């Protein structure tokens, strides 16, 4: 049977995406079978029609025959399609049950659809990791996605895996698969969800089990850092590093090592001791106090950093010696 399936796949495979999950062939076999049947049926019917049109064209045929019905022919073309159609349905639903079966050891990932992105939640040892856009999964491992949506209905679709399921607000739906090939595969949202519906795409990145473990351990540790100094240093790297060095050397602005607790003099204000208040003001309203010898170049970060972020930054700056 597999052999026949493979032959059909070679002929019609061009119209289907790559087979990258264990259940792809379940869909493709039936797809190819129905396609073959359809082509045969269609060509047969059209050939008969064309033949009749040519043979019995008005210029060729003087008189029409009188054939109001034919019990045998009608029985045949009622019974045979019924058998074929119901056969296809039964094949389809058995294949579906096979696809729906979730192995008990399946690895669970939570998926949330939101206008207009996919969020993936991994859990390990009581810690959580939220990612968007790219879903990492290990190859050859049964995966089950536990899905919901926060706003409107979306639908999670990975063509190469032949899986699709709506994500419904207030409801949990599940879909499962085992990726069989490493690589990147497209995720589409297939339930219309508004303005950027067509941008609600993502990627499944299938990697080796070892790489997945490594990735997950690293990311989940990263995501669960609670040390304010560590968080502050990350914020600093992202927001401040272009203009401020972490030693005493000058970049565009002054180097910040050892600044906290020292007296600062300004070109447009009285001296103050660099305390928390002062650093906060420097971040939110830089032109208020401009350090002597530096141009007024810094933009305000008001609205770009949260109160928490600023606390973390201050904690970090305190540690710079």
């Amino acid at each position, binding site marked *: 049977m597999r052999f026949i399936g493979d032959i059909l796949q070679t002929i019609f495979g061009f*119209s*289907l*995406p790559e087979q990258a999950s264990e259940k792809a062939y379940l*869909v493709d076999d*039936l*797809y190819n079978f*129905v396609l073959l*049947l*359809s082509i045969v049926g*269609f060509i047969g*019917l*059209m050939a*008969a*029609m064309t033949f*009749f049109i040519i043979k*019995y*064209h*008005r210029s060729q*045929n003087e008189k*029409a*025959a*009188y*054939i*109001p019905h*034919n019990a045998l022919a*009608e029985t045949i*073309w*009622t019974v045979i*399609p019924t058998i074929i*159609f*119901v056969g*296809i*349905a*039964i*094949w*389809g*639903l058995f*294949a*579906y049950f096979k*696809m*729906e079966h979730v192995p008990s050891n399946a690895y669970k990932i939570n998926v949330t659809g939101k206008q207009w992105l996919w969020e993936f939640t991994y859990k390990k040892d009581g810690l959580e990791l939220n990612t968007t856009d790219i879903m990492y999964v290990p190859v050859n491992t049964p995966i089950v996605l536990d899905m919901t949506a926060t706003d*409107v*209905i979306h*639908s999670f*679709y990975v063509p190469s895996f*032949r899986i*699709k399921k*709506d994500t*419904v*607000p207030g*409801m949990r739906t599940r879909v499962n698969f085992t990726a069989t090939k490493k690589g990147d595969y*497209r995720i*589409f949202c*297939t339930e*219309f969800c*508004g*303005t950027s519906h*067509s*941008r609600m*795409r993502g990627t499944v990145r299938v990697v080796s089990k070892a790489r997945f473990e490594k990735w997950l351990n690293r990311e989940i540790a990263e995501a669960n850092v609670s040390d304010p100094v560590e968080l502050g240093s990350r914020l600093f790297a992202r927001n401040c590093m272009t203009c401020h060095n972490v030693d005493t050397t000058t970049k565009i602005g002054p180097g910040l090592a050892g600044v906290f607790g020292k007296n600062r003099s300004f070109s447009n204000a009285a001296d103050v001791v660099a305390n928390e208040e002062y650093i906060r003001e420097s971040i939110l309203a830089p032109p208020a106090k401009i350090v002597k010898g530096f141009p007024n170049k810094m933009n305000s970060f008001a609205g770009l950093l949260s109160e928490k972020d600023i606390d973390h930054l201050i904690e970090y700056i305190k540690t710079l010696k």
Partner: protein
Amino acid sequence: MSATDAHSHGNYINCEKGLWSWLTTIDHKRIALMYFISIMAFFLVGGLFAILLRLELLSPEPIFMTGDFYNRAMTMHGSIMVFMVIVPGVPALLGNFALPIMLGAHDVAFPKLNLASWYMLMLGAAIAVLSLFWGGVDTGWTFYTPYSGKSADAVTMVVLGAFIMGFSSIMTGVNFIVTVHKLRAPGMTMMRMPLFVWSLYATAIIQVIATPVLGITLLLLVFERTFGVGIFNPALGGDPVLFQHFFWFYSHPAVYIMIIPAMGIVSEVIATFSQKTIFGYKAIAFSSLAISAISFLVWGHHMFVSGQSALSGSIFSVLTMLVGVPTAIKLFNWVATMYKGRVKLDTPMLFAINFLALFTIGGLTGLFLAAFNVDVHLHDTYFVVAHFHYTMLGGALMGFFAGLFYWFPKMSGKMYNEVQGRISAIMTFVGFNLTFIPQFIMGSQGMPRRYHTYDGIFTPYHVASTIGSWIVASGFILAIYILARDFFKGEPLKDGNPWNATTLEWTNTEIVPIHENFTELPTVTGRPYEYR
């Protein structure tokens, strides 16, 4: 031919004059002509949106539309084509014109209701189209909740418009059922009715039973939106999927409202242009009823991936397959009718053959979608888009145009330009396939529907599809142009039955029917299509 002397009032077109006489007419033939004009106008508007959408899809990134504009254009295309063109198209236009005459009646049972139904369609259509000036609607023609519960204000307008148009459809349905039951000419038994009448009868049953459910669904949506009650809102305990069940309980039978009458037309046209009795009259008549009965039991196949249970999915899958059986029977019977006939490929026949070929593809691709697991892959992709355009545009509308060209001589008393008519039929066929075959392929490859921007791998298919859309649009515009021009300037008929057809509207009326159709009701003695 009934030997009646020329009626002193002239025919139905010129017996009264002036715009007012048209707007207040209760003559089913005049109402049909009013539908003709309005539905063609809607068709051109809906088509314009389609052309714009296809143009935008030439490139994977936006060309001239924003995402919101695209979604609005897409919703307008769908709503106009479904609610204003295809649903009323065949029954309200061709059915209104032909049904009473085919039965040998002077008019439909409730002529005033018939006129009211036209006004309802106009009112609903006006409200729905005017919503464009209140920001438009971006939900798609399916109005899925909870999205439609929150999105643009104009949703309420379009939904109310669709509700009113639903009433129009119900009124037409009630009228046709009663007309068929009570107003048949002497001797016109049910089993002597032309197949077009049978198909309208089956359609009317669906219209009457299914449309009220759409009505209540849309009312609940309006209730939800104006009062914020939360019946479909999961945040307030409601079930958004319930809306889908309600919606498809109407909207799946509704696709048969669209296709069954077109099948009726094809039966008429193929028998007439083969000059041979229809093969399997009873099978064709009863398969229409069978389709309308089964159509109520298959709505769940729109929700195979919505999270409904695997058991109900399986049941819906098998039932859906069963709809294929009466459909297949019809296809075989039509081809068998051509066997040993005297086939002539005039424009109506060409459109009927378009129907036959395209609808067969539409039906066969339905098998993919009815198969439970294959649908998981194909659901909400371009495969579905192509499938329903093959059934609705390739099926219902090709049948509709077959009917328009077929009854055109009787409506107008003129003959259209045959050569041009054939060109339009061939153009639509070629353009149609160029437009939608690529959509099958990209759908199978995973291109989701309702996408304004898309992955670059699909570009070649989209380009081919867009080029095809220009050809198919030109074909339909040519067809409409021919019909409009020749209504006034066509060559006047000398014979009231140019096709040598057998049904009463051709055999027992004047070249152009008089206001009362018949001066004396005909007596029917046998089945139609008796070419011996």
